Each structure stands twice: as C-alpha cells, then as structure tokens.
C-alpha cells in the first residue's frame, strides 16, 4: 500500500446467543458510538462507511439502504460489501489508498438469532442443481471436508476435539464471549454426531453481536491516536464454485490469501514473525486446516501442535485467544470483525487475562462457511 492505514477506534457489543433487548440498528449504534468515541471523531468527520453483510442473513434485500442511520451516515457515502468483515476492512484500506478518503468506518453485525430458518439460508447457499437436490443439511459438506482433511494429513478427531477444549477454555476469560466452558476431549467426541466425523460440539454455535472500526490514513492516525493498530497487509481469495472439485485436504484459498498478505507486510517467516493468530474455527477441523494453509503449522502437524499446547495461551503460537468462533459464538459476516477486535486488544495490551506479552504482530483470518471456498487474511501490528 502506498498509504499506510491504521485502526484508530474500535467498538464491540460483545457476543451472545440472543440479543432481544436491542434492534439490529441499536446493536450497531452501540458499537459505533464506542468506535467513534475512541477515534475522537463525529461521524460527520468520517469520509465513508462500509458494512459487511449478507442480505439473506438480514432478511432484507438491498440491505445497503438500512445502514446509514445507525452508522451516522445519513446522506453520506455508504455501501455494503457482501462479504466478511475482513474483506470490508480491505475495501476500506483500498478506498483510503485512492487518496479521496482519509477516514472510513467499517461495520459488521450478526443477528443470527433472528433468522428462524438458518438451515434454509445455509441450504440456499448450495448449488441448486448438484447439491440442494440431495436434500442434505448443509453441514454434510463440513463432514465430508473434515474426513478428507483428516485422511490426508493424518490429524485426528481427538486433535480436533482439543481445538474445541482450548477455544472454549479461552472464552472463559474473554468477557465478550458467549460460550466459555470447561470441556474434555471426551465431551466433544461423545457429543451428537452431526455428519460424521463432525460432532455437535465441533461446530461453533450462532451468535449475535456487532463490531465497528474506524480506519485512518497515516497522518490522521498519528494526529488522533496514541495506539494505532496498523494494517500491514491483507488479501482474500475464492476457490472454484464446485465444492466437490476442490482439494478438501488443504485450504488453498487461505494459503493464497496469506501469501499475498505476508508479501505486503514483508513477512517471510510467518511462524517466527507472527506472535498470535485469530483464525476461522467455525468447525474445529477448520482451525487446523487453516493453520496449515497459513504456514503456521506444517502439513499434518497442526493437530499435534494443538494437542501439545503450542497453540494455547501459553504456547509458542497462541491461536484464537479470544475463544474463536467456537468459544465466542459464530457471527457469520461479523466473524472476521470479532477476530480483528481480539487482535486490536492484544496489540494494545488490553486483552486482560488473555494478554500475550510483548505481542507486536497478529494474523486474523476468516472463511465464509460452507459451501464457500472464500477466505481473507490480514496482518495487524502495533509497529508501523
């Protein structure tokens, strides 16, 4: 990037399985107030506004029309990006790099609890000719991918279960997380089989919440903010549409996105230069698969690293210190936002009991869920 971009304000509502006390607008508003306050900006001083959202999750088509009020963006440039928060954040960085915008607000929220037919929405994402016709719950794709991944890499279901145990344990010390728990691998393995080898507890539970950040060009960031978090690199990538023709053992989309993000950030040895990672763990095996794709674990070793504690809070490469989607709750297009929030707290030294001492560089990664092969990566740092 020609112009360096930093996060100068962030607001989160925290995450919970339901949020009946606030409308989606009120939910976003409460996150936006915190973010703008932290940035020291009135929304009139913010040049453009972006929401990462998917109409079917909102229950509104042309959801763009419903974002200005709660963002403070009435009669201002605003648009949605039908993608994860990290992609929306990347769009914001690119807008700043046009030179036409100095500050951008980026938002994503989940009101998954308001979608009464979540499985229908998921089914609606399946190919109508080749997949929907089989009339299987969309999670069967996760079961298929998980089996192929384990088969080819030699990772085990027990190691997947240890991802769940770790993430739900981390969530216990994250006040924003909704699914903290003390579990054992046995609890996970003996939970109800959804689509084997995937068990009920291998999957993150839907959750509500909102995240807003304010991005700024370097000069603005330095004048307004004492602890900016720099976006050093970002990228995203989409695989072919046909799920069944992808390499299910390896998350190529994440690998390619990471390669670009690392190059932008000047990172050549990811596992040495990155202090912690927030990766997509919508299903337990995805955390392992993503770690291998991101180059943070060698192929076939992600399970071993997890099992032996290398990815725990005290480990060499802490992964999902927030609790991840499994521990915090799965917030669909806001998932990347939850992870960015954790990274910002870590890089500002505000992560409380979860704090990784001396952390300077973190990786955040998201995946858009089955049946997609789309994922994004961003590298954040407290050093410019």
């Amino acid at each position, binding site marked *: 990037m020609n112009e360096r971009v930093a996060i100068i304000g962030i607001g989160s509502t925290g995450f919970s399985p339901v*949020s*009946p*006390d*606030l*409308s*989606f*607008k*009120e*939910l976003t*508003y409460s996150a936006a*107030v915190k973010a*703008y306050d932290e940035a020291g900006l*009135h*929304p*009139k001083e913010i040049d453009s506004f972006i929401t990462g959202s998917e109409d*079917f999750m909102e*229950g509104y088509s042309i959801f763009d029309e419903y974002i*200005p*009020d*709660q963002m*403070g963006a*009435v009669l201002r440039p605003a648009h949605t990006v039908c993608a994860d928060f990290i992609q929306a954040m990347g769009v914001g960085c690119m807008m700043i790099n046009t030179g036409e915008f100095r500050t951008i607000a980026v938002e994503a929220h989940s*009101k998954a*609890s*308001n*979608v*009464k*037919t979540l499985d*229908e*929405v998921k*089914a*609606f994402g399946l190919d*109508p*000719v080749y997949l*929907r*016709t089989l009339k299987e719950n969309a999670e069967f794709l996760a079961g298929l991918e998980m089996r192929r991944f384990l088969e080819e890499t030699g990772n085990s279901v027990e190691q997947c279960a240890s991802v769940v145990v770790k993430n739900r344990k981390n969530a216990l010390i994250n006040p924003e997380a909704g699914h903290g728990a003390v579990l054992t691998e046995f609890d996970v393995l003996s939970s109800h089989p959804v689509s084997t080898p995937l068990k009920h507890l291998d999957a993150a539970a839907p959750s509500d919440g909102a995240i807003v950040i304010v991005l700024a060009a370097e000069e603005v960031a330095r004048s307004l903010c004492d602890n900016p978090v720099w976006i050093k690199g970002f990228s995203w990538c989409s695989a072919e549409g046909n799920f069944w023709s992808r390499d299910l053992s390896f998350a190529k989309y994440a690998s390619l996105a990471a390669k670009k993000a690392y190059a932008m950030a000047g990172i050549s040895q990811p596992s040495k230069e990155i202090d912690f990672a927030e990766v997509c763990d919508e299903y337990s095996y995805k955390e392992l698969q993503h770690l291998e794709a991101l180059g943070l674990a060698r192929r076939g070793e992600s399970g071993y690293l997890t099992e032996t504690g290398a990815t725990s809070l005290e480990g060499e490469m802490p992964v999902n210190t927030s609790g991840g989607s499994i521990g915090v709750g799965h917030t669909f297009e806001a998932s990347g936002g939850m992870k960015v929030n954790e990274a910002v707290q870590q890089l500002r030294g505000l992560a409380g009991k979860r704090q990784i001492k001396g952390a300077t560089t973190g990786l955040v990664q998201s995946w858009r869920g089955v049946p997609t092969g789309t994922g994004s990566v961003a590298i954040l740092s407290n050093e410019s």
Partner: protein
Amino acid sequence: MTIIKVPVKGLSSKEYERSLKVTWQPELQYAWDNGIAIGKYLEALKDGKILGSRCEKCHRIMLPARSFCELCWRPVDEYLPVKDTGIVNTFSICHVNWDASRLKPREPRHLPAVIEIEGASAGMGIMHLLGNVKPKDIYIGMKVKAKWKPRKDREGTITDILYFEPVRK
C-alpha cells in the same frame, strides 16, 4: 451428408418446467428483535397512542420513535406521544395487490399515504393507508385522523390503526 430428422413434440408446461429448469422454493423465516424504540412505539399503539422521540440538540420530535438521533448522533432525550391527527403529505391510488395482480373493477382501491403527524417536527411523516374516503376526494394537505381498532383487538402492530380518515368539519 446425412440429415437426421429430430421428431418434434410440444411439451406440456409441467414437462417444460421439469426438463428445462431446476426449481427451488426457499422457506425463509425471520423474527426481528424490536429492541428499545420499535418496542416502545408498538406498545404505545396498543394503548392508542403514536409515540415520538425528542432530541434536545436538533429539537426534532421524530416519528416513529427511535432511541438515537441519527443526525446529531446521540441518544434521544425523551419519548412522548404526539397526536393521532395529521395532514396528507403525498398519496397514491393503488390498483394492484401486493403480488402485482390487478384489483377487480369493483374492489376498493388501496390508498397508501405519507401522513405528517401533528405534534411531530415538520416533514416527519409516517406511512399508512387512507380510508372512509373516495379516491377522488383525497388531496395533498388534507387533514386526517387515525381510525383505531377497538382496544381489545389491538396487537401492537401498525395495523392497530386501521386507516387515517378525513377530519370532517
């Protein structure tokens, strides 16, 4: 060159749908949280009141009630009932149903209107229907009043007001 003759046979509409298209009927259901402001507004309707909210900074009384002023970017200061009378800001005579099917000649026309409610700030309209009025008698600026459902039938939805009807002198 051999020319192969393909037998031609017309398809029934069912055969056409089945052989040339793949169909899907989604079953999508949502239950949106009302939250603070919408919740208060709908509750007030049950009580026969139209609820607005006031912002001390821009001095607007906003309709429907909202929990924050989207222009001043601050929480509202007060929720307060406004009147159930107003004037027609704009209207249309709708000759088609929700699904775009045409109304039959004798069916009453639908009469959607934007109504500026008395007691709210200028330009603060709500969307509703007009009733108990001939389409040709409606005009911009016409004074109207809410025709409420009987109290026992109200459910906390905007249809607790059946329609707005002209205020006759």
